[in-house]
């Protein structure tokens, strides 16, 4: 198949990407380990494990469990912290020739702002991806991700201290995803990432205990794809042109194209990388072939191109 006519390069707001695929936050650590298994230069970008001002050591075990076509995790936002990230992890990422997205969070307004400000000291960061859905943080964390007004204030405060564009990663646990997107857009976010994991639970009936130590965890993988796709479509329709980075269960080229058609401008792949470290490279090839087959020559041509069904003939009775 002659797919050389397809050029996968694209843009996400002001950010240029060699492909629409970003490795999803929390699923690629800081990229180093993947270098052994896959050619990092074939990715469009990497979103790092969420960074907080201070290091965090994460939640008790067990932290993960498998569910039907999905998995639950409660890692507890473990990360090396801002300073170690800047000095030990960022240089490696910067050298890979791909778009560097730093996912970050705080535990309150002050630490969010502190983290955004601190990351602006780093060289070569393209996007700050602000995670406002921290189910595993106790104090008030839930409001950042579910109350539009709070999200608005938080976003605004971080945008004010950042030269690097801020993309807000929304929580699917919000009742009104469009309201959330609108709120952060008005606060100056460059775009939104959606969706983060959906809060879920599993029980071991033999021990009668929750399967993960924190009782609840975040559901990811193919199981959530229909929900993710719907949310991307809702936001894309409500806020035309506003950059959306879509994710949730993408595991092959068709999944990827579904998200583009629904209105995502670029994509993240998370859970699929665990079982198959080369997943993104395979999916990239599959998308290239598929775009060619259905007649698009770039990913951006496909963005939001969902067709409406022909109306059924009117009912005669």
């Amino acid at each position, binding site marked *: 198949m002659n797919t050389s006519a397809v050029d996968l390069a694209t843009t996400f707001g002001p950010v240029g990407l060699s492909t629409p695929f970003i490795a999803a936050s929390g699923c690629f650590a800081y990229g180093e380990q993947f270098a052994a298994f896959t050619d990092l230069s074939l990715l469009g970008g990497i979103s790092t494990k969420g960074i907080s001002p201070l290091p965090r050591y994460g939640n008790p075990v067990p932290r993960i469990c498998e569910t039907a076509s999905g998995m639950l995790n409660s890692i507890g936002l*473990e990360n090396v912290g801002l300073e170690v990230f800047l000095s030990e992890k960022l240089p490696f990422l910067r050298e890979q020739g791909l778009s560097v997205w730093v996912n970050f969070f705080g535990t309150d307004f002050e630490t969010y702002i502190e983290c955004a400000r601190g990351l602006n000291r780093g060289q070569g960061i393209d996007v700050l991806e602000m995670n406002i859905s921290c189910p595993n943080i106790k104090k008030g964390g839930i409001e950042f991700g579910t109350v539009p007004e709070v999200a608005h204030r938080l976003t605004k405060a971080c945008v004010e201290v950042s030269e690097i564009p801020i993309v807000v990663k929304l929580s699917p646990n919000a009742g009104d995803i469009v309201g959330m997107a609108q709120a952060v857009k008005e606060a100056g976010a460059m775009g939104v990432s959606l969706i983060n994991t959906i809060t879920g639970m599993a029980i071991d009936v033999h021990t009668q205990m929750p399967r993960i130590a924190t009782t609840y965890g975040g559901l990811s993988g193919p199981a959530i794809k229909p929900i993710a796709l719907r949310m991307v479509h809702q936001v894309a329709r409500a806020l035309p042109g506003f950059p959306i980075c879509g994710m949730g269960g993408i595991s092959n080229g068709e999944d990827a194209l579904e998200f583009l058609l629904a209105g995502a401008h670029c994509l993240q792949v998370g859970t699929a990388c665990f079982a198959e470290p080369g997943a993104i490279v395979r999916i990239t090839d599959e998308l290239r072939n598929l775009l060619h087959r259905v007649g698009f020559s770039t990913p951006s041509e496909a963005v939001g191109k969902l067709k409406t069904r022909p109306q059924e003939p009117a009912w005669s009775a």
Partner: protein
Amino acid sequence: MAYEAGVSATAFTAHVERNRPLGAGYFVLEFAATCETGVADVVPGQFAMVRGDWGRDLLNPRAFSVFEAADSRHFSILGKVFGRGTKRLAAAVPGEKMTILAPLGVGFRPARAGVTQLLVAGGVGLPPLHLQAKRNAAAVGPNAVEVFYGGRTRDDLLLLEDFEAWGVKTHLATEDGSLGTRGYVTKPLVSRVREAAQRGESVELLACGPTGMLQAVRKLGLDHGVPTQLCLEEHMACGFGVCLGCAVPVYGEKPYRYCCSDGPVFDAQEVRWS
């Protein structure tokens, strides 16, 4: 400290060459990789992440100790039917395609002359110790290792003929007394450790098996000041240090290390178990 292989893991495709049922739900799957891999250099205790063409239902690969590695293209695992994944693997037919990541993690220290390694295996904890016994019986001599092997009943004690063929001494225990000592395998182990202390014999403990057994072995090692390595199991999504799912509570600067990349073999002193 545990011992890390020099060769790094790769992701590759392999076909099932043979599926050898061993009774009582145990099976050995022999794989042929479609390309050169690093499995020939496996250190006992290192593992493989294995996943069949199972659709999206079973999302995560399953971890299995490398049981045997004939050359850079051929290796096997020994499993037991437990849940959905091992049920699928037990039913695998020759020719079936699997995706593999191996060899992963940090394995057991090799034996050296003058120190007897007491290998403590419980149930499906056998594979890495079977390999350790074979390797070291050949390299250092049959007396360099002794195997302590426990199970619920005699059907759980597999491949005893191998140890015999290598000249390796075995101490068997079954909970129902159908073979060897009745009770836990730690019973003969305790006697052996006491005996060694009395004789001034240098021993170390290498254990793999159910958590209860590992806890007992850990306590025994710590109480007697015997160097002890434990091969642990944690739920894993990736197997190579990126999901942070397989945390193991440890003493030290940080509260957790990772079963897949810092282990699965840990020093008993390091493991933070109450």
